[in-house]
């Protein structure tokens, strides 16, 4: 129970469904004061109080589990290392994979619980398959797609059939004070939302070149390649305009040479996406036609997806722009009862070329 509205309603619904429910709030900060202040995060003392108060109203026991060390090792350190390696990580996904449905689940099962209930907006069908929420705008199946069938088998997502608006209305009707609490959007462990500044404190400055993809000319300097993400347009500080006057975007980041390569928008387009650490839940063999989502809240695109060895390859039917390594690629099968997650992988690379056979 983060202290937000979703987990509070999820807990209440789990009670209504007849489960014996215990509320757990995760203490993820080594020092709670160092994380976000105010009412929009999930790691502050105020959030812990909100969660406790919700548990009181629902009438369930409530405990704080200290997972600060695990969170730091598995999520925060990984976040820094990924940026240092030129990739763009998704810490929420990582937290689901390593903390909520691993460390917490393992501990819960050992203590005699059967499942972890969360307020994620996603559905689990009777066959144990993960599906999108009915609320497309709030769907979180993307950040859950890394979960194995074992993890999903011990998970309950009571909110997947409801819109966020319905969840808020239900919270109000249940007398939960968090009904109007704003959603959290940013990264919980970066208190002021300044990811670049936060990374700079940890990675230091590492000046390098900003290079034009076409000519190879050095167009400018940067203070650290980690501050850039593929597809980024703002903050490049290039004083020389492109010959055609069109805006330039970050095309790639090369940590070895500490180079940020920029170019025109169309250079961002990729047709083939390669992922590693694949997880394929479907018995259906590949290649398979599917829709593929390449970032949180990204528009899914039709693709042919194939699993070959340790790689998941998506041949996109229409090119897309701004695919960043480190993000997840999640394959869905469209379905009226909620698109079904077929599998996922971590994006390793993407090219403009069609997939090799």
């Amino acid at each position: 129970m983060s202290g937000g509205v979703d987990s509070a309603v999820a807990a209440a619904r789990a009670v209504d469904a007849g489960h014996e429910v215990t509320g757990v709030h995760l203490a993820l900060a080594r020092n709670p004061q160092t994380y976000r202040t105010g009412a929009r995060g999930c790691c502050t003392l105020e959030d812990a109080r909100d969660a406790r108060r919700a548990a009181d109203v629902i009438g369930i026991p409530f405990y704080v589990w200290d997972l600060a060390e695990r969170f730091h090792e598995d999520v925060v350190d990984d976040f820094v290392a990924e940026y240092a390696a030129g990739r763009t990580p998704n810490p929420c996904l990582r937290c689901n994979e390593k903390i909520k449905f691993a460390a917490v689940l393992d501990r819960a099962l050992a203590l005699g619980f059967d499942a972890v209930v969360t307020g994620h907006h996603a559905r689990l069908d009777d066959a144990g398959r993960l599906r999108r929420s009915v609320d497309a705008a709030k769907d979180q199946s993307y950040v859950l797609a890394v979960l194995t069938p074992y993890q999903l088998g011990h998970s309950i997502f009571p909110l997947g059939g409801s819109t966020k608006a319905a969840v808020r209305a239900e919270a109000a009707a249940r007398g939960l004070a968090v009904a109007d609490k704003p959603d959290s959007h940013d990264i919980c462990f970066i208190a002021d939302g300044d990811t670049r500044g936060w990374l700079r404190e940890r990675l230091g400055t590492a000046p390098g070149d900003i290079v034009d993809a076409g000519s190879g000319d050095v167009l400018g300097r940067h203070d650290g390649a980690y501050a850039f993400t593929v597809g980024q347009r703002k903050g490049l500080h290039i004083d020389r305009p492109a010959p055609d006057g069109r805006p330039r975007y970050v095309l790639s980041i090369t940590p070895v040479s500490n180079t940020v390569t920029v170019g025109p928008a169309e250079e961002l387009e990729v047709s083939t996406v390669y992922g590693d650490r694949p997880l394929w839940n479907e018995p259906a063999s590949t290649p398979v036609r599917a829709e593929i989502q390449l970032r949180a809240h990204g528009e899914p695109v039709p693709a042919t997806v194939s699993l070959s060895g340790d790689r998941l390859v998506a041949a996109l039917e229409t090119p897309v722009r701004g695919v960043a390594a480190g993000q997840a690629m999640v394959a869905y099968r469209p379905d009226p009862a909620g698109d079904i997650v077929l599998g996922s992988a971590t994006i390793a690379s993407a090219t403009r070329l069609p997939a090799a056979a």
Partner: protein
Amino acid sequence: MSYLDHAATTPMRPEAVEAFVAAAAEVGNPSSLHAAGRCARRKVEESRELIAAVLGARPSEVIFTGGGTESDNLAVKGVYWARRAADPARRRVVAGAVEHHAVLDSVKWLGEHEGATVVWLPVDGYGRIEVDALRAELAEHADEVALVSAMWANNEVGTVQPVAEIAALAHEHGIPYHSDAVQAIGQVPVDFAQSGAAALTVTGHKIGGPVGVGTLLLGRDVPATPLLHGGGQERDVRSGTLDVPGIVAFAAALEASVKAQPEHAARMVTLRDDLVDRVLAAVPEAILNGHPEHRLPGNAHFSFPGCEGDALLMLLDAAGVACSTGSACSAGVAQPSHVLLAMCADEDRARSSLRFSLGHTSTADDVDELIAALPGAVERARRASVKKPQAR
């Protein structure tokens, strides 16, 4: 349900509830001059006299406060400020390493904000203060010591401190000695005059009185700078309108609890020893913490190696058994107990500890329930703490 957390708070005694309700129904500020005020004042003063008689103090030495934390703050800060004001050289504060946080954090605060030099008195493996350390400190620095604070009995492991020896040493050097006796009252004999202490902390809700009322017994010649300024109540040391219902209920509970102390202690010792024997039989690896003899009669404190105290507490709670890890919380995150750490326990042993505390409503059934639930809880808690992250 088995309530084994009487050291946290214990049910109010019927006579205290009755006294509270009767007083709460009547109007009157004890500081007012009219008839209603006089009537209220009479109740407060009768309570003060009763409390003084029961605890071996003079009525004028009874300063009513909002409870144990306030009394500790007033004793530590108030006496430090007054003694330092009288002699700027007196900046040393000597306190036990296993004090309750109300003393511990007040002392630390004086060190961090008021220029105090803090001296912690070490304890032995049972949590008992090493009197020789105090002797050495006073031999060296008696002229600079503002006060000595050492609790009567420890709230976590139940160890009763060598109060008489500490008081004698402090007295020898003319240094005021404060003792937090919150856990001791009604459990062991406590007499303020005989103890030699200059200040003594007592609270209502640990003895069957209401929460939010207590007293600092403060010797008439002991200077203390007030924490709260205002109307000048309580010898000008503690301003604030007196809580008449709270005070009369506190006095009623204190009288009942101190009168019953010998029989109560004997009954608790029998019940507690049975609890200890059966816990050690059910979980042979368990370690009893605290002193084997100098111990509060209602206290049993164990470490369960390989378990996290938090996990055990949760599982026992689910089985209807209420106990405590006895450790301080921030945002509900348990820190290893400073008491266990001061006793030279390692962090794992400190984190694996649980306190079971008996009180005036405890019965053999409470112990039976604990023993029925404990082995299963220990097994699960152990499994949870050895569980390694699952590889993918």
